[in-house]
């Protein structure tokens, strides 16, 4: 992979052009999927099913926004699934103990930011690779959660706790979160000084440093903002069902990282957008749902999922290579 170092203006234009294309590939893939599967089984494109696909996976898309920022900064967070499990359990436990609902919703954000900032600080100031820090944190959070809760179900939660089950103008609330946060994050990444600094640090640390950016502070900020999104994802996750299982959702970190990288975020840092990662989260969810609609043998579902993810990635690379040759 060419780690093109985007030095401000010219690189920034390149970035935008490239990114629009990347998002386009995913968007076309989604539309194609809906058209093809919709022709086979019209119920797939019913408003109800589309709403289900968005609703059931909004928390993944939201977490993938934060993950994308971390990856763009040249790092990764493997602990994200365990963190969501821990934060969801905290939110539920607070609600059960009669804490005001708004605090139950805000606590995961605050704790999420605190934990990820801590990890970011270890990465940035103590120079430990993020994969090591977050791999270690994965074990600590998971083991700690099981030690404390034993996996007990949290039930009898107050009805007003269930944020994800509410609707606004007939559309489930999580969808607003997913769309709104994606757009806000996309603008923020492009327009704010910190957002641009995250790209710069991920692209080329030395160049970033020379242009007056503090790489360590930027990495901590990227992790902190990631914690904010993880906190929101945890609240959406915790309030979706009427019961919370106080355990770590299996393989959630892989799903979130997959959404980010299929969305075009380069694991080498410096490139990618949060719009891409949200589109990828939707695509992956739609693929999973579509396979039930077209009666693919359940044994082969995961293989087909793997192939489709691979095809999307290859299509994107092929497009980029062609673009490089063309210009």
């Amino acid at each position: 992979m060419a780690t093109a170092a985007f030095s401000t203006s010219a690189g920034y234009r390149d970035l935008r052009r490239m990114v629009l294309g990347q998002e386009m590939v995913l968007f076309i893939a989604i539309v194609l999927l809906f058209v093809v599967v919709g022709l086979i089984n019209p119920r797939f494109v019913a408003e109800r099913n589309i709403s289900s696909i968005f609703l059931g996976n909004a928390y993944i898309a939201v977490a993938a926004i934060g993950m994308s920022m971390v990856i763009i900064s040249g790092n990764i967070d493997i602990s994200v699934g365990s963190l969501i499990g821990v934060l969801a359990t905290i939110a539920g436990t607070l609600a059960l103990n009669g804490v005001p609902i708004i605090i139950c919703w805000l606590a995961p954000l605050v704790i999420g930011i605190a934990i990820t900032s801590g990890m970011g600080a270890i990465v940035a100031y103590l120079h430990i690779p993020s994969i090591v820090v977050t791999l270690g944190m994965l074990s600590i959070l998971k083991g700690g959660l099981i030690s404390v809760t034993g996996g007990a179900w949290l039930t009898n939660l107050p009805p007003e706790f269930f944020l994800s089950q509410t609707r606004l103008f007939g559309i489930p609330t999580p969808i607003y979160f997913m769309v709104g946060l994606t757009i806000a994050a996309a603008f923020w990444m492009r327009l704010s000084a910190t957002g641009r600094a995250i790209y710069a640090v991920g692209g080329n640390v030395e160049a970033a440093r020379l242009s007056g950016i503090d790489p360590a502070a930027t990495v901590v900020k990227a992790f902190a903002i990631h914690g904010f999104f993880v906190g929101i994802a945890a609240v959406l996750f915790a309030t979706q069902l009427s019961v919370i299982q106080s355990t770590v959702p299996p393989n959630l970190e892989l799903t979130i990282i997959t959404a980010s990288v299929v969305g075009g975020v380069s694991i080498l840092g410096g490139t990618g957008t949060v719009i891409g990662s949200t589109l990828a989260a939707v695509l992956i969810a739609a693929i999973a749902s579509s396979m039930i609609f077209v009666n693919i043998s359940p044994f082969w579902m995961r293989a087909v999922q793997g192939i489709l993810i691979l095809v999307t990635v290859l299509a994107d690379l092929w497009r980029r290579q062609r673009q490089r040759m063309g210009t």
Partner: protein
Amino acid sequence: MSVEARATRAPFAYHHELLLLIVLVLVVGFLAVGTDKFLTVDNMLNQGRLMTEVALVALPMTFIIITGGIDLSVGSIMGLAAIMLGVAWKNFGLPLELAIVFSVAVGAVAGFFNGLLIIRVRVPPLIMTLATLALYRGLAEGISQARSVRGYPEWFFVLGQGEVFGVPTQLWILLVAIIIFWIVLAKTTFGRSLYAIGYNEEAARFSGIPVDRIKLIIYSLSGTMAGLAGYIFVSRVSTTRSDMGTGLELDAIAAVVLGGTSIFGGVGTIAGTVIGFTLIQLLKNGLALSGVKGDATIVVIGTVLILSILVSNFLQRRRGAGG
């Protein structure tokens, strides 16, 4: 280039391994005082048996991470190879000996496919192997149709459950593999090329190192070892299942990075990795024997992972940017 890379990086590796070795000795000493069941020949050999699969996968993973790559699909390759062993024997009617060779070959092909797309289409290794993590597990599920293959003849279990000269059979294989990987990495041009690629891939290319061919070899090697681990695992547990090896990739990566191999490439040794997986296995075992429960044990291991790298970094006061 490669010489320069090694010259600047070697002291780090040396210190980290020494530190890890001290930690290992301390841990073993501490646990041995805690319980007399821990430091016995029987227990040590048995732990060797239990860690062989992860260890076999961690060796080529060290090579890959040194080049700045990663292979997340090893657990799925292990599952696929295990399934193919059973299917080739039961459904294709191959003799069991051939089925074994076939399953390891499936692992090699799976790794080769990873490597091929990584070098030809320039898919970043993390994305490629994330996709094949899903794909290979999916193939294992689809081919097995959730059925297990059992009922192997007695000789088949010698590798996984038997002993040779009083030592678990698979430990001999692991020992040979460690020696080969160590020699290749430390003593050959091939090994030096791995460091050069990880240190600066473009520079390595310009200096005439066949970067693509080397990458293809190491990813194929990783698949082959995962296939071999699959065979050993089937022999140890007497059955095949499509979910075998789930999570293996993270165990292997944890061992490699604990062993001091830098995830950014260019740094790492086989000795470090060997100490890494030994330390993790003995910690798990020793803590269990001392009455610490599994959920607390993984907390300890997570902490050790972070702290050991932290202390190591602190000791050598490396300067550098975050990330």
